[in-house]
């Protein structure tokens, strides 16, 4: 009995010491909303903003984005670009190592980029973002198993050849599929390496509690000095309100994201708090019209609908100023958005005149606006419906679709416009801050996301020219500006407003920047990352 008591006593005191020791260290508790779990810790297989955020903490790439969202060195200490803009030569940092201490070599870079494009990986982010690398199509198509555009020149030198010069190629290299994985770790654990016990970035995984979160610890081998926190708890909350409840009862240090901000009903409660951070999101809500179907094949009809839309009322009254109205495509903060574009102002008379000019009788015109059921969408389309009915005298039907059905209808519209949607309301956000992602990627004739089939030869020529300019920044942005003006005047998209990223970051947390990117947060310098002292 006495022995049992003694053991119990020792056990209890050791428990006490353990918990006392735990209090000396700082844990940063970071909530990620909208998911119950990350899809994979394999950088090539991450698919959503939340996944990219976690990958960014665990894995490093050749380059990364800094606080101003400009490309800066990460695992590569420097690089040169050939005169013709087609060959990038990266030099890896001396002494760069994975979290298990093995050196990061050019062979790992070749392996990682090949892995991202390998059809056996079953991923699509790599094929999408890295399509400019020479030989990517052949690898993706299964014609070859090697990526001809990426070669290891020596231990620390990697050469990447691209198909066409591009000002945003380096930006594309800052995301998920371009992160560097240890090929040795993959070979050692072909089945479980994607639990990411070996990483190249600022943190490595101590535990992955499926469906709940990740426990991360600093990677001592990362090239930057380690952060001031001893543990980073990533907590998954499907629902933003749940995360908010945890935050306000002191269980979280960071919450909110670009896609899942603080619940809008909670914003008035917190907007005066020092923890509240708000910034312009790099996204835009818009209505796209099916340019292959009457009546929206006529530019005057599209213009009439644009002139009949009162964006100010929509943004400032209906949505209570939680968003910023816009009549252009580039969101504020994206390079090129400093140069003005002349939008189509709210003008019901002009709208009616344009409709008459197009020979459309408003009384007999009946159109359908389709949208995905999510967030404030219902409220927004109802307002659009009444604005158009009132200002144009047309009949507008609303078609709500569950999100999954909506995306499949968009795909149908892309493949078979004659049987597609007539008009739809949706959102577009960016993974890298470049006008190309907002113009070339969506409104060039026939590109994958041009579901409305907008087509203008001059727009195509201007954006194609701008896409391959790498040195003359001003000239490039000028070309994009001319292209954007054409798309705005011809209503390639009827843009409505830009969203806001509203998040909560505890006052004592340092080193975390909130940006308009779809993964919202950037940690520009991991050594400056600080958490709150334990309560």
């Amino acid at each position: 009995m006495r022995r049992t008591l003694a053991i119990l006593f020792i056990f209890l005191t050791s428990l006490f010491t353990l918990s006392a020791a735990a209090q000396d260290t700082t844990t940063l508790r970071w909530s990620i909303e909208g998911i119950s779990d990350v899809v994979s810790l394999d950088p090539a297989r991450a698919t959503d903003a939340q996944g990219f955020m976690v990958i960014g903490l665990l894995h490093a790439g050749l380059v990364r984005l800094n606080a101003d969202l400009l490309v800066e060195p990460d695992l590569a200490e420097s690089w040169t670009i050939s005169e013709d803009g087609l060959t990038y030569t990266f030099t890896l940092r001396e002494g760069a190592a994975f979290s298990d201490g093995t050196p990061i070599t050019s062979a790992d870079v070749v392996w990682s980029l090949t892995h991202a494009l390998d059809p056996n990986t079953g991923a699509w982010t790599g094929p999408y973002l890295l399509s400019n690398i020479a030989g990517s199509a052949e690898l993706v198509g299964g014609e070859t198993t090697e990526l001809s555009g990426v070669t290891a020149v020596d231990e620390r030198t990697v050469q990447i050849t691209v198909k066409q010069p591009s000002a945003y190629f380096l930006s594309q290299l800052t995301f998920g599929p371009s992160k560097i994985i240890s090929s040795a770790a993959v070979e050692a654990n072909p089945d479980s390496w994607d639990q990411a016990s070996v990483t190249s970035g600022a943190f490595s995984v101590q535990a992955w509690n499926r469906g709940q979160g990740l426990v991360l610890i600093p990677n001592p081998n990362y090239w930057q000095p380690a952060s001031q926190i001893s543990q980073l708890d990533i907590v998954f909350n499907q629902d933003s309100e749940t995360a908010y409840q945890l935050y306000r009862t002191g269980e979280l240090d960071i919450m909110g994201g670009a896609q899942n901000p603080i619940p809008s009903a909670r914003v008035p409660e917190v907007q005066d708090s020092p923890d509240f951070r708000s910034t312009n999101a790099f996204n835009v809500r818009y209505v796209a019209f099916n340019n292959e179907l009457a009546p929206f094949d006529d530019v005057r009809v599209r213009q009439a609908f644009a002139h009949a839309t009162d964006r100010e009322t929509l943004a400032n009254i209906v949505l209570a100023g939680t968003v910023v109205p816009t009549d252009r495509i580039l969101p504020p903060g994206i390079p090129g958005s400093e140069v003005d574009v002349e939008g189509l102002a709210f003008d019901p008379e002009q709208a009616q005149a344009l409709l008459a000019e197009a020979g459309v009788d408003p009384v007999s015109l009946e159109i359908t606006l389709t949208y995905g059921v999510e967030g404030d969408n219902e409220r927004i389309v109802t307002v659009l419906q009444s604005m158009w009915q009132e200002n144009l005298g047309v009949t507008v039907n609303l078609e709500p679709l569950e999100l999954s059905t909506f995306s499949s209808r968009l795909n149908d519209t892309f493949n078979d416009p004659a049987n597609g949607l007539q008009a739809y309301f949706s959102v577009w956000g960016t993974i890298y801050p470049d006008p190309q992602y907002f113009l070339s990627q969506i409104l060039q004739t026939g590109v994958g996301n041009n579901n409305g089939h907008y087509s203008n030869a001059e727009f195509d020529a201007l954006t194609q020219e701008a896409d391959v300019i790498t040195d003359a920044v001003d000239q490039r942005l000028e070309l994009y500006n001319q292209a954007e003006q054409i798309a705005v005047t011809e209503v390639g998209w009827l843009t409505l407003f830009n969203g806001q990223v509203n998040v909560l970051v505890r006052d004592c947390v340092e080193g975390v920047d909130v940006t308009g990117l779809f993964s919202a947060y950037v940690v520009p310098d991991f050594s400056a990352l600080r958490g709150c002292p334990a309560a």
Partner: protein
Amino acid sequence: MFALILKRLISLPFVILAVTFLTFIVGYFAPGDPILNLMGNQRDQAIYERLRTLYGLDLPWHEQYLRYVVGLLQGDFGLSYRFAQRPVIDLIRDGLPVSLLLGLNALLFSLALGVPLGVLAALRHNTVIERVIMALILALYAVPSFVLIPLLQWLNYQVYLARGSALPAAGWGRPEHWIMPTIVLAAASLGYIARITRASMLETLGQDYIRTAQSKGLRWSRIQWVHLFRNAILPILTVVGPAIAFLVTGAFVIETLFSIPGIGFLSVEAISQRDYPVIQGTTVILALAVVVMSLITDLLYVVFDPRIRVNA
């Protein structure tokens, strides 16, 4: 009794087969496309086609279904589309114990409170006590969880403001995580169990054998335990069996709003993502749970009611 078990066991595979077929065919004809969901904005027709082939979605429906059933017979539930081809059985293995624990907690809690409340209400028939209990029970039964949860969260926040610490608002792992979701999940079944108990007690109280026992001069406490409860418990058993199956899977909203990594949450997410293998896997598990629970209920009937034993 053995005939009963045998009958149930024979029908089990057919029930499961029917369930898999229904979930498959509903999913197949439902609008929406899992691959498009996965790819989001990054759409590229060639990659899309390749992924459809990779996941076997380009096959005609009967081949897809056959593949699934053959896999199922070998204990293979298939691979999740969304979770980077993770085996569905792994996802279920992670989620099921959590849901079971939560469901069991809720069941015990609702029985521990519901039965005594129902008994008390019946024994104090036509008094203020009964009316108060009945009002409370009706309220618990009627208030939906999406009303109860914010209310509890608000109360919890008030406690936090006053004391500087409170129950965890969400999450899973420590026993204190169990408290709020258990209360919410138990609320409805608590009300239901209490109502059934009261009704059953009242009915039994009016039986002749109770009056006979009283007239024999037996002590009331003995009548209560031996004659009253044993007979009144049968209808409660009928609801408990299916209630367990429901508790395991009926926690959809609760698991989502409390960030609990259970199976209900998993299936809701799978539906919105069109992750068919996961939807089918969780549905099969649910069907199994319902069949097994009703079998157990039938067996308990036999134990508690000798008349059934004779007839069987």
